[in-house]
């Protein structure tokens, strides 16, 4: 009985997940694992996560107030306003991208919904980076003597940002399974992004014709919104919020659609 390779598909097999578990319980456990593994063997723990943005803030402050004479008031806080969202974004995106390949053994052995892996990698990173956000808020409150009423927009802005990273990470994590170079593309993109996000220059310095593009880049929009809320103490503009919402929701939805297409081949490629 010599069987030959099938030249047609008589019945298309639907890849359906037979996993009927508890999504929240699983995501919670994966995030807890991330956090525990990260901090259990560290003697300084959270301090390391705070040191990085503080050092960067110090360096930027030195360069832009001592070498270049910047006109931006409260430059150190202004820079931190950009650095923290930038850090959260880049680290979450990178961790999300490599998460599937790093969990290869898991994916080959448990029929757990594949989306869960990059999503919880991103969320775990956000939880771990939240100490940087606390640091930023504390510094802002100390510098300006308290909070202003526009702070209520911060959760909205951050929620949209997380949606955006989740979408982006789903796409890049899926692609990274097929072509392992994707993680280096992400690393380079993050490096480029540092200069293309208004971290150490204000939006007003950007030539008019480029400004609209900036506002559609969710990372730049998040930084702009944070600067307006925290440093300038003004309303972050409805148009900016709408643009941020539109691009974040779009990217997130696209992420799920693309991931659905990509995941059928994961088993063969991991």
């Amino acid at each position: 009985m010599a069987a030959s390779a099938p030249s047609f598909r008589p019945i298309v097999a639907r890849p359906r997940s037979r996993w009927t578990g508890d999504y929240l319980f699983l995501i919670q456990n994966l995030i807890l694992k991330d956090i525990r593994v990260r901090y259990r063997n560290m003697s300084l723990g959270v301090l390391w996560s705070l040191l990085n943005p503080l050092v960067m803030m110090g360096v930027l402050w030195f360069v832009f107030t001592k070498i270049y004479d910047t006109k931006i008031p409260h430059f150190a806080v202004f820079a931190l306003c950009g650095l923290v969202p930038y850090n959260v974004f880049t680290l979450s995106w990178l961790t999300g991208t490599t998460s599937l390949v790093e969990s290869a053994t898991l994916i080959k052995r448990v029929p757990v919904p594949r989306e869960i892996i990059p999503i919880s990698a991103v969320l775990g990173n956000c939880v771990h980076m939240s100490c940087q956000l606390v640091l930023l808020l504390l510094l802002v409150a100390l510098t300006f003597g308290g909070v202003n009423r526009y702070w209520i927009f911060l959760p909205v802005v951050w929620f949209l940002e997380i949606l955006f990273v989740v979408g982006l990470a789903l796409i890049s994590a899926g692609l990274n399974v097929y072509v392992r170079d994707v993680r280096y593309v992400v690393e380079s993109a993050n490096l480029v992004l540092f200069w293309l996000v208004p971290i150490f220059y204000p939006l007003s310095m950007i030539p008019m014709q480029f400004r609209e593009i900036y506002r559609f880049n969710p990372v730049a929009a998040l930084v702009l919104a944070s600067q307006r809320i925290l440093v300038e103490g003004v309303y972050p503009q409805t148009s900016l919020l709408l643009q941020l919402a539109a691009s974040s929701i779009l990217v997130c939805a696209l992420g799920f659609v693309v991931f659905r297409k990509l995941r059928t081949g994961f088993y063969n490629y991991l």
Partner: protein
Amino acid sequence: MMPEAAIEFRGVWKGFHRHTGRLLLRSQVGNWISGRREVEKFYALKDLSFRMEHGESVAVVGANGAGKSTLLSLVAGLAPADAGAVAVNGQVAALLELGSGFHPDLTGAENVRLNAALLGIHRERMKEIYPAIVEFAEMGDFMDEPLRTYSAGMIMRLAFSVAVNVDPDILLIDEVLSVGDHAFQLKCFEKVFQFRQRGKTILCVSHVSSMVQQLCSRALWLDHGELMLDGSIAEVCGAYEGSSSVQG
């Protein structure tokens, strides 16, 4: 009309690409430029059809590379078939997932919770079965120690204990009844046997062993992805052992 099968394969094909350099960008670009679309495929399962009723226990025998593990991963829903239909009715737990997601820096208790969540256990159910897991694994006071302080046998015992306490309708076993020392092996075997007596379905991949012959009533013999024989365990094991002693 026939009653719903526990597991049914109809004309199932499952292939893998040969892997040379395919994960690198330059090879992808090279293929794209040269217009080479179809990459050489290797078929692990070729036109496989069989049917298992609820409550049956079936062994899959065959040499290394016969497609046994691929068969289990299709049943477990880990990989889609290339062609043909795979139907599985009931909750599946696979003892090939032993210790999935175990991390050496987490304590035994933390690992159990994560592992169980991965296997699809709900939060409330976890509270109910946790004492049973600890008791079956004979872990006692060690649950709050990090996993890296455990012996290999302890880790396997813990993993097995989580897997059997999931209590599925269909149990997949991949050569794992070799866990821990002899006493624990007997305990595991007993647990699996109880499973069978409660009318659950068991699909078991193994080299021929006396344990499998006791556990299963029927066997499938796979050779290079093709079904050679489907019959009673004695008949299939006899034929398989006969053929391998001739070759080897």
